[in-house]
């Protein structure tokens, strides 16, 4: 019950946030919170592989970046009127582009997962990292779409008749996507598939012994997880109207892992709490000193030690 009340209060605060930020005379905080929600969504996507399936991936930045580039490339072609590869027309419609981003990221996750999931433990971590770095360098060399300078586009994608230039409107659109994604996560966790995935996380040998094709279950989880990261990338590209290979750098994967652990991997809202905590600390410390990372590191260690199981598990079991 306490968890439910806390969730309701958190949602109410988010719904009121654009008004609060305006009243505080700090409209930049609207964009900061939008960014937090998007990274929370990305961490929540990683959580399907990590928290539900026990797959420690250091490659999710690739899916996140691919989702972002799908938006950037599609929008650029829509603006220029030139078809992609001379075949596919671009689009500036958010729902179309988000679907494309999730599809492309899902395909990338399917290919990388099909190879990486044949390993486990440290090998799995390293092979996902290696694939992500390959994708990073691929986009770095992609001069047609900006190379290491990245790709800028003039306006956010269109969603119905909403004024997407308005940061508050985009904040609510992002919140909508986040809530739908969290509902999907809850559905996955409490489904037959979720029970089998959780079983594999706890004891893969046991699940194999009852006839579960554990590779297939993990592969599907990895694909769903990659699609979620792609969705987050699509929103991030729209937020800044800019994409660059930096989105795919391995440090992004590391940050998503920290968000999951800090907030509570294996919980529904934990990764989102982790994203808010990490980015909130970054933003606050950043204003105090240029050596903020020297404070952030030990602080994170203390937080992880103090809140074993993550912020979402404070005062009880899984929310």
């Amino acid at each position: 019950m306490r968890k439910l009340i806390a969730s309701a209060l958190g949602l109410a605060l988010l719904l009121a946030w654009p008004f609060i930020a305006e009243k505080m005379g700090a409209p930049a905080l609207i964009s900061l919170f939008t960014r937090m929600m998007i990274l929370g969504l990305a961490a929540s996507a990683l959580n399907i592989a990590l928290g539900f399936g026990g797959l420690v991936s250091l490659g999710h930045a690739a899916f996140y970046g691919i989702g972002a580039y799908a938006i950037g490339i599609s929008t650029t072609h829509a603006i220029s009127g030139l078809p992609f590869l001379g075949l596919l027309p671009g689009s500036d419609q958010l729902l179309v582009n988000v679907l494309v981003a999730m599809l492309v990221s899902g395909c990338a996750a399917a290919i990388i997962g099909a190879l990486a999931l044949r390993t486990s433990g440290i090998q799995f971590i390293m092979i996902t990292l290696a694939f992500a770095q390959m994708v990073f360098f691929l986009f770095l060399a992609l001069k047609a779409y900006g190379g290491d300078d990245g790709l800028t586009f003039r306006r956010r994608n269109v969603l119905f008749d909403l004024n997407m230039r308005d940061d508050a409107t985009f904040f609510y659109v992002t919140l909508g996507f986040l809530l739908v994604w969290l509902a999907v996560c809850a559905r996955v966790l409490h489904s037959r598939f979720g029970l089998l995935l959780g079983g594999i996380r706890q004891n893969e040998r046991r699940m194999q012994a009852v006839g579960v094709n554990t590779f297939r279950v993990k592969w599907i989880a990895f694909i769903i997880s990659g699609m979620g990261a792609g969705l987050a990338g699509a929103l991030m590209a729209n937020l800044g109207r800019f994409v660059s290979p930096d989105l795919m750098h391995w440090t992004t994967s590391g940050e998503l892992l920290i968000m999951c652990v800090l907030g509570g991997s294996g919980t529904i809202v934990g990764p989102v709490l982790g994203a808010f905590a990490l980015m909130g600390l970054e933003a606050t410390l950043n204003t105090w000193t240029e050596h903020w990372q020297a404070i952030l590191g030990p602080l994170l260690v203390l937080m992880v030690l103090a809140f074993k199981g993550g912020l979402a598990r404070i005062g009880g079991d899984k929310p």
Partner: protein
Amino acid sequence: MSALLVIDDLTKNFGGLRVTDHVCLDLRAGEVHALIGPNGAGKTTLISQIMGEITPEGGSIRLDGVDMGKLSQAQRVRRGLARTFQVPQVLSDYTARDNVVAALYARGASPDEAMQHLARANMDGRADVRVSDLSHGERKQLELAIALATRPRMLLLDEPMAGLGPVESAQMIAILQGLRGDMAMLLVEHDMKAVFALADRISVLVYGAIIASGAPDEIQNDPRVREAYLGTGED
């Protein structure tokens, strides 16, 4: 009774060590066949090869005439093979019921069946207890319920009495007696009281090779078996 599981000339080496040495074994439908032998004889390795966890280097395993050699572990389970482990392999974060439900989901069955399988392993009273709160004996029983949920025709039991006290052992023997006839069982066990209480036939495995096979009284009086495993009773 016709042979349900036929193992023919099975061979496996771990480096220079031969752990399965041209093993031939047949198990009949509905029988309890005990496999005994000293530690390191290769009993668990044999179970792992039957289940497809370890690939043998030679020989064949046939279940009801079907060659298991090319089948994955999941396919073997679907055809009716199931196993338990010496150290119980259970899902510690789940309740006993959810452990069985996971096995039911694996074969596309309804979770409503869970209680009947738990009851057969005398675990229906502990259905909603988290596995981390169960005793070792209860985990052994739960593992049996999980295996039963796969609807096995051939149940491979890897030391079901290991780590159990006298009362828990007697309870496990009673549970296995209750399953007799519903499926064939290959019982790997060191507890001779349980072996002689349950087995219709016994095979003795020493250094990867079957040295004797027969009815319990034949095995008990076989001088090779007494020398290699059971002891002469003189010391």
